[in-house]
């Protein structure tokens, strides 16, 4: 990182910051602490020029200043031409708004109000038996072999199947969405594989559009049903906008929980004493360990914003239209808030991490993510307690510019016995349960809760 001279006094803290390079992943801790010590809000000329917030206090104050920040992705140039949450704007995403994460209130709030009853802790708790059954089947597929790839055979499948179930899409279609959901994140724009991945993504968009039409014709409960019936700013939005929302739910539901689970399982393999402790003391340690893995491995390392009015926040003056990167991952490593921030402490207290974002755009699927993560990890601890990850075969995402993820995490363990039917058969059984028991209905506030408020 080199400081350059600039003639704008506001931009006196200039750095060269490019989170899309492999160096940013490899030197993450050094870069983070250098930024935090020298300039917790800095200007960088990379990717068209933007601010970078890395200090915990600065990220907190900025993220909560909704009146001066915009998430808007003005795809058609109807408003102020803002570019949404990705820096730089990727060419193919430039064509579509990323759901309500790339909107401002009140529309953003209306969407969240429509979807919250499917994603609250009370709503998600109803899915635990479903999740456990998918996890059981995934582990059964590999338990007799003594070999598993925790990404391909577990952490890709469970979040995908649950997300589709909650949306109201047939479970067997998880393979249609799985590859594009992950590959569109980890494939560099200049990769020779990119045209194929772009084609997969287009097909995913078409599948989502068709799912929307089908549920309009023959309603069945779930997030899609909520969207086709939603009133946003007094009207039901066009299908194009709803497909963007569905793609956001897929993107949020698939790759992030996979990334968190894979990193936690890798760390636990490298720290077997801590793994045994977590397994033994899970009744008191599982919640804090989950938050610590979230803090340390922040699956979505940050979000972009656009400054929507001239303002001064956290001692820095900003001008309307400037772009800003809020680094949740770097804020999570600030020693002023987290003692010994680069160490994983499964019992950490006061862990006010920002891995689900801060402010009005807090990850709407956070309760899903935590539940699925905990059920996967504890099942592995129970059924494959001596697993060892194979460092040679492990493939991390080359960069962490979008998601801090993993493509493969192979492991070996002492083989065990199957406990039930195959994954295919299990998904058929669970599909019938979804249809007959209408598992994807929203929760309704009970009278007790009304009076309590």
């Amino acid at each position: 990182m080199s400081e350059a001279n600039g003639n704008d006094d506001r931009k006196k803290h200039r750095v060269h910051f490019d989170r899309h390079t492999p160096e940013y992943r490899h030197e993450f801790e050094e870069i983070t602490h250098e930024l935090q010590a020298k300039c917790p809000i800095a200007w960088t000329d990379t990717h068209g020029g933007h601010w970078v917030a890395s200090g915990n206090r600065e990220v907190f104050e900025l993220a909560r200043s909704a009146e001066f920040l915009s998430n808007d992705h003005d795809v058609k140039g109807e408003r102020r031409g803002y570019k949404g949450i990705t820096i730089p704007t990727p060419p193919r995403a430039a064509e579509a708004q990323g759901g309500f994460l790339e909107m401002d209130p009140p529309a953003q709030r209306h969407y969240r109000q429509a979807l919250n009853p499917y994603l609250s802790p009370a709503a998600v708790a109803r899915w635990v038996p479903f999740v456990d059954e998918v996890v059981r089947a995934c582990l059964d597929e590999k338990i007799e072999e003594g070999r598993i790839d925790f990404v391909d055979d577990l952490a890709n499948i469970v979040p995908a199947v649950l997300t589709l179930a909650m949306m109201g899409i047939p479970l067997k279609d998880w393979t249609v969405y799985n590859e594009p959901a992950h590959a569109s994140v980890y494939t560099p724009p200049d990769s020779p594989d990119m045209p194929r991945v772009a084609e997969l993504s287009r097909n995913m968009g078409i599948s989502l559009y068709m799912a929307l039409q089908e549920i309009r014709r023959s309603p069945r409960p779930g997030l899609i049903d909520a969207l086709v019936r939603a009133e946003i700013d007094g009207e039901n939005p066009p299908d194009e906008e709803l497909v963007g929302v569905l793609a956001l739910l897929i993107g949020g539901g698939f790759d992030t929980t996979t990334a968190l689970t894979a990193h936690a399982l890798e760390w636990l393999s490298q720290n077997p004493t801590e793994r045994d402790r977590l397994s033994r003391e899970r009744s008191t340690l599982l919640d804090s360990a989950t938050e610590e893995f979230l803090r340390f491995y922040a699956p979505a390392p940050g979000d972009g914003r656009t400054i929507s009015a001239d303002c001064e926040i956290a001692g820095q003056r900003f001008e309307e239209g400037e772009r800003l990167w809020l680094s949740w991952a770097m804020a999570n490593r600030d020693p002023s808030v987290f003692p010994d921030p680069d160490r994983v402490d499964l019992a950490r207290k006061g862990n006010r991490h920002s891995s689900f974002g801060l402010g009005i755009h807090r990850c709407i699927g956070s309760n899903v993510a935590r539940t699925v993560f905990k059920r996967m990890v504890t099942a592995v601890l129970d059924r494959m307690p001596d697993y060892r990850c194979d460092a040679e075969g492990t493939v991390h995402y080359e960069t962490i510019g979008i998601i801090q993820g993993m493509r493969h995490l192979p492991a070996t363990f002492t083989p065990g016995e199957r406990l039930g039917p195959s994954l295919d058969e299990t998904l058929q059984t669970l599909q019938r349960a979804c249809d007959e028991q209408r598992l994807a209905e929203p929760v309704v506030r009970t009278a007790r809760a009304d009076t309590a408020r």
Partner: protein
Amino acid sequence: MKVRVDPERCQGHTLCWMTAPKSFQLDEVDGHSSAVSEDVPADQEEDVREAAHSCPERAIQIF
């Protein structure tokens, strides 16, 4: 000791409820938190302090 969750600041991270489940309750529909009772029983004070310290939005006021 008294506790209050600022409904304008709470975004439903649920950490308070994980830390002090006897003192905070979550709305069934949006998961946002509120205090079970403004008055904190003596045996809950430590957990409530810890919950306030854990809130990512700093939405919990102790007074």
